[in-house]
């Protein structure tokens, strides 16, 4: 039966529903063949498999083993027996039909159940069978297998050889005897593969305790992985894996058209011959029961804390506290610094918070120099809306580090399904974590692999750390059994994200308290926008529910350095303060504001000037600034040799001063050519010509060969590599070789007036 046959039988409404499941719309005049063609690709039809439970996948696997992918209804019911009720089978089939994966008629009279070639061709985890694999082998290889199995006279035709092998290995007695006669190493390997649900990947096989003894070189492209060699090389018989392959007890798993094995499996015929039973015995047909975790205790997810810390992260980034790697991502040390400030002992927490904010679009890429991300405005967001945004963001993105593009979709599906399925757990009830993992595996086996033994070290596909922050509590029973609980309030938020109900979330507070000891007390449910603002002026000191910030000379200086004027800082504090701003705080800001800009730096190498000669004295004597080696040119001017203004600025700021770059202090040199080079001389020449045309002065730094000199000059002419200028201070005429000029900049009005 073909998929189009099913589509033809569906009513228009059913067909529209089916297409809606795949996110498609029914086009006018589209016939069943066209629709089937649209669906029949792994990208479209394959999506459905991730929505199926264990039993539904077993039904499909059973159907693809049936001739023509179809069986009488009674055969399916007989095969399932009394494992589950027929009504449950119908329910499961109904769901499969909704996806267009099967058709059926549940009736003893002319009842049937069928799947389609399109489904069979892409069904994941389809059992590997000799009947599927052997036709791909050559007649000679099949002859060798016949000999290995023990046929004294192998049939002469390829098809007969094939059938003989299948018949022999499907015979329980013969197959059991064959396995029993294996040499010890081969027997150990066979048992090891069977113990792993009959399939192992190449990578797993490389970790087999027997190691290289299994099959020589198993590396990609190696002799063993090139699986054909197992059938053609006689002298490999002693290798356990080759032995098993040549007997047909194991077959390679090969991607279509591939030459290398990606894994090895016990074929279905051999499995049935050795184990007997039915495909429906291989896994659970009913969802496992969730086990109550009696007496479990654990911390409930605190969504208010999560939203508060989102505000902290936005503030941390907005205040320029984050350092960026060359690829534009934050340095791990920056996030660690944030984690420390947040007082959260979980080292993974800041990175999780970061990914939540990025995926929710609360941080976006910046175009401004020196910044990689900037926080977005969240003024209007209500607590439920912000929570919903975080959840949505998390569920619709994969971690940026996900290398394999195929995994991106899987991770997103996994997250969506985890939220949906966990949202259905009994509310406010502790259940064992194991039973939840089993439940998720049964419901979506392709997304949540069967949980392995805890000692295996394999990371769970369920992202517990993120879920713990977002929706559930993790805890332990008195005897140490891990347990989880989803609060009813969170379930309601998940079920109706548009709700304005504040269950589980506190309403925003929008005020803080500024105290005379320069602390700012911020309630736990403060609006994130308020935190975003406050980070710009103060440092987070405590974060234990309420957050306590500290205003200090350093924090105010940092705000001034980011261009926030002192008055704006006072206004920022006052607008949300429940109490008047204390005099001590106002004065702290005023003092720093007055200090700000008293030291000015500019290029021409780097100059430092100030209106207070004593301050320049202090800079000269400061040990912290020793590395700058200030050279005094005048009572109020010094130069720094070989240090860019930006670096000098940074050094002064680190030493506790509040310098600014001089207005218009854009050096001729910038980051460009080296002083003295032809390109630099050309640039200087143009610069002075332009100044002459505008009647402006220049601040020039040059070398006389023995010492550096600096002057504010009025350019008069540029001719044959010389600058002819008048010294604005002395009125003397100067002739300066352009090759000797270290740098020059437009002098501001104050300088020129001197």
């Amino acid at each position: 039966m073909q998929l189009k046959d099913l589509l033809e039988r569906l009513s228009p409404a059913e067909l529209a529903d089916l297409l809606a499941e795949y996110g498609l719309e029914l086009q006018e005049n589209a016939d069943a063949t066209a629709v089937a063609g649209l669906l029949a690709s792994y990208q479209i039809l394959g999506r459905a498999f991730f929505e199926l439970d264990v039993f539904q996948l077993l039904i499909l696997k059973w159907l693809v083993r049936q001739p023509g992918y179809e069986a009488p209804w009674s055969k399916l019911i007989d095969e399932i027996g009394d494992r589950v009720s027929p009504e449950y089978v119908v329910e499961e089939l109904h769901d499969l039909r909704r996806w267009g994966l099967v058709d059926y008629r549940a009736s003893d009279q002319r009842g049937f159940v069928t799947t389609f070639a399109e489904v069979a061709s892409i069904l994941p985890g389809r059992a590997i069978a000799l009947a599927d694999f052997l036709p791909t082998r050559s007649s000679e290889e099949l002859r060798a297998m016949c000999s290995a199995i023990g046929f004294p006279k192998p049939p002469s035709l390829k098809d007969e050889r094939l059938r003989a092998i299948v018949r022999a290995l499907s015979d329980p007695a013969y197959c059991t005897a064959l396995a029993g006669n294996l040499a010890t190493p081969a027997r150990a390997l066979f048992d090891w593969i069977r113990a792993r649900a009959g399939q192992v990947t190449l990578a797993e096989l490389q970790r087999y305790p027997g190691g290289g003894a299994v099959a020589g070189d198993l590396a990609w492209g190696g002799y063993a992985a090139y699986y054909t060699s197992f059938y053609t090389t006689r002298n490999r018989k002693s290798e356990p894996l080759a032995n098993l392959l040549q007997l047909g007890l194991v077959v390679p798993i090969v991607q279509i058209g591939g030459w290398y094995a990606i894994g090895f499996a016990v074929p279905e015929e051999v499995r049935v011959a050795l184990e007997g039973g039915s495909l429906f015995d291989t896994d659970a047909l009913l969802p496992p029961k969730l086990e109550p975790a009696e007496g479990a205790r654990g911390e409930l997810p605190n969504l208010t804390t999560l939203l508060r810390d989102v505000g902290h992260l936005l503030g941390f980034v907005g205040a320029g506290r984050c350092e960026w790697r060359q690829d534009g991502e934050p340095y791990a040390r920056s996030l660690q610094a944030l984690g420390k400030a947040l007082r959260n002992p979980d080292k993974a927490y800041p990175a999780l918070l970061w990914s939540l904010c990025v995926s929710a679009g609360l941080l976006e890429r910046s175009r401004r120099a020196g910044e990689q991300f900037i926080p977005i405005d969240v003024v209007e967001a209500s607590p439920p809306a912000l929570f919903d945004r975080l959840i949505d963001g998390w569920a619709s993105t994969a971690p940026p580090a996900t290398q394999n593009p195929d995994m991106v979709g899987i991770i997103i599906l996994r997250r969506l399904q985890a939220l949906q399925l966990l949202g259905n757990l009994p509310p406010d009830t502790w259940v064992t974590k194991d039973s939840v993992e089993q439940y998720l595996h049964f419901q979506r086996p392709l997304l949540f692999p069967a949980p392995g033994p805890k000692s295996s070290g394999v990371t769970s596909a369920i992202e517990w750390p993120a879920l713990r922050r977002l929706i559930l509590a993790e805890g332990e029973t008195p005897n140490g059994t891990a347990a989880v609980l989803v609060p009813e309030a969170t379930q309601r938020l998940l079920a109706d994200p548009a709700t304005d109900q504040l269950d589980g979330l506190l309403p925003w507070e929008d005020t803080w308290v500024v105290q005379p000891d320069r602390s700012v007390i911020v309630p736990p449910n403060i609006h994130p926008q308020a935190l975003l603002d406050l980070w710009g002026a103060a440092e987070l000191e405590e974060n234990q529910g309420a957050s306590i910030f500290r205003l200090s000379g350093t924090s105010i200086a940092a705000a001034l350095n980011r261009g926030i004027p002192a008055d704006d800082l006072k206004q920022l504090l006052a607008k949300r303060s429940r109490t008047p701003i204390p005099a001590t705080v106002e004065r702290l800001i005023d003092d720093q504001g007055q200090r700000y800009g008293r030291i000015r730096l500019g290029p021409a190498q780097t100059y430092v000037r100030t209106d207070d000669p004593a301050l320049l004295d202090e800079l000269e004597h400061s040990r912290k600034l020793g590395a700058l080696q200030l050279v005094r040119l005048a009572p109020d001017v010094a130069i720094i040799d070989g240090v860019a203004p930006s670096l000098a600025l940074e050094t002064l700021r680190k030493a506790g001063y509040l310098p600014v770059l001089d207005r218009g202090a854009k050096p001729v040199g910038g980051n460009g050519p080296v002083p003295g080079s032809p390109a630099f001389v050309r640039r200087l020449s143009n610069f002075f010509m332009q100044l002459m045309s505008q009647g402006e002065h220049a601040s020039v730094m040059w070398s006389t060969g023995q010492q550096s000199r600096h002057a504010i000059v009025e350019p008069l002419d540029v001719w044959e590599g010389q600058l002819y200028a008048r010294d604005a201070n002395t009125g003397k005429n100067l002739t300066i070789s352009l090759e000797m000029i270290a740098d020059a900049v437009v002098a501001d009005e104050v300088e020129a007036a001197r």
Partner: protein
Amino acid sequence: MAAGYRPELPLIVQADRTLLLEVDNPLYGECRDRLAAFAELRKSPEHVHFYAVTPLSLWNACAAGVTVESVIATLQDFSKYELPGNVLADIRDLMGRYGRVRLLRLGSGLALETDEPGLVDQLRRSAQIRPLLGEGGGGERALVDPAERGRLKQALLKVGMPVEDLAGYTEGAPFEIRLRDCDRLGRSFQLRDYQLDAVETFWAGGGPRGGSGVLVLPCGAGKTVIGLAAMERAATHTLILCTSIDAVHQWQREILDKTTIKAEDLGEYSGQHKEIRPITLATYQIMTTRGRGGASGFQHLDVFMREEWGLIVYDEVHLLPAPVFRITADIQSRRRLGLTATLLREDGHEEDVFSLIGPKRFDAPWKDLEAQGWIAPAICTEVRVPMPADQRMEYASAEARQQYRIAATNPTKLIALQGLLDRHRHDRVLVIGQYLDQLDAVAEQLEAPLITGKTPTKEREVLYDAFRRGEIRLLVVSKVANFAIDLPEANVAIEISGAFGSRQEEAQRLGRILRPKADGGQASFYAIVSQQTVDQDFSDHRQLFLTEQGYRYEIEDFVPAA
């Protein structure tokens, strides 16, 4: 609205067991009183006070009969937000530990007892505790040498196993003491409510659960009187340790003024006198004088053991020197009372004070007493003066350690000081400073008497008395006047230089003017600092304790006439 959110309530309970209490909330008073039973007031800035629920504070609460249920009920009754789960678990766990081991008297010795099988063996396995336990005693009991009582309690506290000390105290030689109803001038005298509360909390009915601990009250709140009341309760020979000879004399005056003790029963054990009487006053300095013949090389330390003291009072306990700490560990059978305004040790040894003298039994916020009129309201002002141009250069090029001295002794401060004195020409003013040459210059310029460490005691007394009588309205003093100098009439203090960033010194200096004024007037405290220098930075730090107590500093810029 989310369950458990009650924004109208005054308390925020944090996961680290700190509590934030809003002062402006109508329920503030009630909440503060209930928190006092089990939480420790850490700081009390103007709008939000900080408490901490510590193991020690909970064990003290247990000792006072407070139950887990009442602690949790208080937090639940006042918390704006749902209580963090771990806080409830911690409180149950910590309070559950109290009383698991008890220290009891056994014949002439002591015994550590428990009801839990194996616990004594477990304690014996601790390297810190093993040497302090004697051999034998039986399964759930270990013998303890009485001399190790203090160290054992310290060690058990460190391993999180608070001992319930039921061994009681040595009663000491009896000596009857009565507080007078009127002082010697005939003025009515009785304990204020908070003083009574402090004494009762310390004394705890005279049983083994009381009788040792620290009382923290603001300067001017009458700590000496509380000490006298404790002595009345104990009615025994008492040793009082003070920071200075001035303080010894201060205590003597108070004792004679407010109790029935006669002068002949008062002894002074100091550099000048070596008298041991039923009530003996000694200085920390004499106790820590090194010499032959004494314990651990300290000549006079055996005074602690020589007499049958039933009570030892440690005045200004935050200044307790290390040798006295050590001897205090040996005298755990005597009742011990620590008194202080600022339990801040710049060396961070507050915990040792708690474990050896005893837990903090009482702590009254400064602003609460001010509101009740028991200490004078004070206006704190920082006056910022510029540096003269020539000094600015000197300051700029000086080594870091010299910079503070240059800034602190800025001569422009004297001009500003003169301006303040003009403003307060009718007041009683103390000018306080750190540097003697600066104080000399000030005294000379103002023609005012100067008291420093070099001033003979008698001369100091004469000057203090003259100040009290109003014959002198201005005194220039060095740090010798930081503590225990009772000058109730002083209403203005001007600090011209401080001991770098010492918070407790700033508080003590303010304390000199906090005695309530007869006319109900307010006190004025000025700190003159050189602007934009390290003097200003240190001043910021010095102010921290007072701002945490709820004081606000106004800031004035002083501009000298051209």
